[in-house]
């Protein structure tokens, strides 16, 4: 593959010409902020936070979608870039509830991370924003008021063609993420695989069963591989001291699906007995609490094993 020389913030590097600016910067150890960009997803360049200044370009360009070229000279932290990023963050914050005090995402939230980095604070407008919580699906807790419309969830959901539950609805200031024809998460065709939860950069989509159980900074995280099927999806154990308090899905790799069955099996397998959250099954349009045996459809298996052992 043909390689090109680029200069980013005064440092030069030789990268394949298929690289985008954000990829080249990463190789140099330069972090460019990004909300909508996720390496495993299609590039849409919609959040604009990754803008950089490229010598010769009149406008700022998005680092996630601009390919490198020979002799390219990029500034990722020029005054103009910082000013633009701060403005984008301020607009996002003006439309976001000031809830970091108790928000489950605090500590892992990209909006919080960049607001701190670029020193942007909530203005008076944010006090007008009230939470819009949809708890109908216990596995996918949705709070529309916290959504920044980056669309990661829509793209990751669409990677499974027969799902494609989430989509953008409405336009302009009314724009939002909708499930099916604007149903609740519980009544939609969502199968609670949590792919969307694993990539949401803010507190708009979270695991409802982990709410209120831990703060991200008090947990040590341990990476595990799911062994329920041969895909071997990635999960994370949340450890508070010596106790495992929860399991969560990590972003799916290429060709991997993520599923609720894997998630719950890992939970049953690893989580401290005293910390196990109740499980739910969808019956009709609603989720209702169920037993573990029922949720994982183990009844017949357990019966047969017991009989086998009696023999």
């Amino acid at each position, binding site marked *: 593959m043909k390689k090109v020389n680029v200069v980013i913030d005064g440092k030069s590097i030789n990268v394949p010409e298929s690289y985008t600016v954000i990829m080249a910067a990463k190789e140099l150890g330069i972090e460019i902020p990004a909300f909508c960009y996720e390496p495993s997803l299609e590039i849409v360049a919609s959040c604009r936070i990754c803008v950089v200044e490229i010598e010769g370009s009149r406008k700022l360009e998005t680092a996630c979608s601009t390919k490198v070229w020979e002799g390219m000279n990029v500034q990722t932290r020029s005054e103009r870039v910082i000013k633009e990023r701060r403005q984008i963050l301020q607009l996002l*914050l003006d439309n976001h509830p000031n809830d970091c*005090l*108790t928000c489950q995402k605090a*500590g892992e939230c990209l909006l919080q991370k960049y607001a701190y980095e670029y020193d942007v604070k*909530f203005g008076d407008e944010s006090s007008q924003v009230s939470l819009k919580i949809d708890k109908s699906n216990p596995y996918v807790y949705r709070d529309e008021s916290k959504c920044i419309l980056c669309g990661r969830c829509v793209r990751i959901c669409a990677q499974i063609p027969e799902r494609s539950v989430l989509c953008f609805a409405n336009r302009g200031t009314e724009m939002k993420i909708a499930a099916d024809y604007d149903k609740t998460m519980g009544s939609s065709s969502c199968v609670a695989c949590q792919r969307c939860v694993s990539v949401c950069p803010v507190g708009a989509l979270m695991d409802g069963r982990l709410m209120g159980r831990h*703060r991200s900074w008090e947990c040590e995280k341990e990476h595990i591989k799911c062994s329920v099927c041969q895909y071997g999806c990635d999960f994370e154990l949340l450890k508070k001291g010596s106790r495992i308090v929860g399991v969560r899905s990590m972003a799916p790799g290429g060709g991997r699906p993520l599923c609720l069955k894997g998630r719950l099996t890992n939970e049953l397998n690893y989580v401290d007995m005293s910390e196990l959250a109740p499980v739910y099954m969808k019956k009709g349009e609603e989720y209702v609490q169920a037993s573990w045996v029922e949720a994982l459809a183990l009844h017949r298996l357990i019966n047969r094993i017991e009989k086998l052992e009696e023999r």
Partner: protein
Amino acid sequence: MVLVKIDGRELEVPKDYTILKACQAAGAQIPTFCYDERLSRHGAGACRICLIEVEGQRNLMPSCTEKVWEGMSVFTKSERVIKERKGILELMVQNHPLDCLTCEKSGDCKLQDYCYEYDVTGIKGLEERVLPVDDSNPFYKFDPDKCILCGKCVRVCEELQGTRAIVISERGPVAKVSAPFDEGLENSPCVSCGNCVSYCPVGALLPKSKTGYRVWDTKKVMTTCSYCGVGCQLELIVKGNEVVGVQPAMGAGNEGLLCVKGKFAYGFINHPDRLKKPMIRKDGVLVESTWEEALSLVANKISDIKSKYGADSIAGLTSARCTNEENYLFQKLLRAVVGTNNVDHCARL
């Protein structure tokens, strides 16, 4: 020993235990802001968050000040207790800037922890106070808006540090932590030890760190302070490969306290000008060298001088930054190897 019942669980504890200690012994988690086991009971019980219910008592009691008594039955999580704690947190947070988005204390703030635990969200009620931040001290800043008036800083300064640089002045809604005559921290007797900063449960007292950091992006590394021979235990707060702060640890020598050097003077660790190798002056210019070369040079020069002018023409001066053991070995070296009694120590100067 007395027999007490905590949340239905019976246990025996020494009779001088506070209810809080007994609860902790029983494994019950009690929230605290102003409590610190090293502090006396004078001024304790100010924050009220550790309230518990005792069977037969009309009022809820602060568990950190009351001693246990035989046969008492304590409830740490009763409906009444939870309701009261929520009320206290609500009052605190109504008067606290909702700044967790960018507050440096976020992730290590007790007010944030308890609000999460007791599900108290930031309700906007009272007018926010807007008092000026006192950043006159070069090492730390005080933001009275974030202060919850638990008084821990005042007690740490008075009882543990012995400086008495700050007090709670005024009363009622205008009460605040201030330096004498309200003339700013810079004009107070403050010695910048930073012990108040280390124990502030919220973001009211924060170090002025050169590199900003979020608590969750750092890890802590336990070490011994290298500034003097006391050997205070401390935790370096490390972000990536850089030391960005220091928090005292409970060591036998320092019991969770530090001085201005241990707490704030860590900038040399990552300083680009820091000497990492011994330097030898060659032809008038200092050049980097190895320890082996430098030490043999010193040894050779000492024997040269000794053979030429006698051992008493040599003197050794050691440092208060060394440990007792190192200082002992140094005088041993001078007396037994070099053969002179000319040995002194910078702490005498």
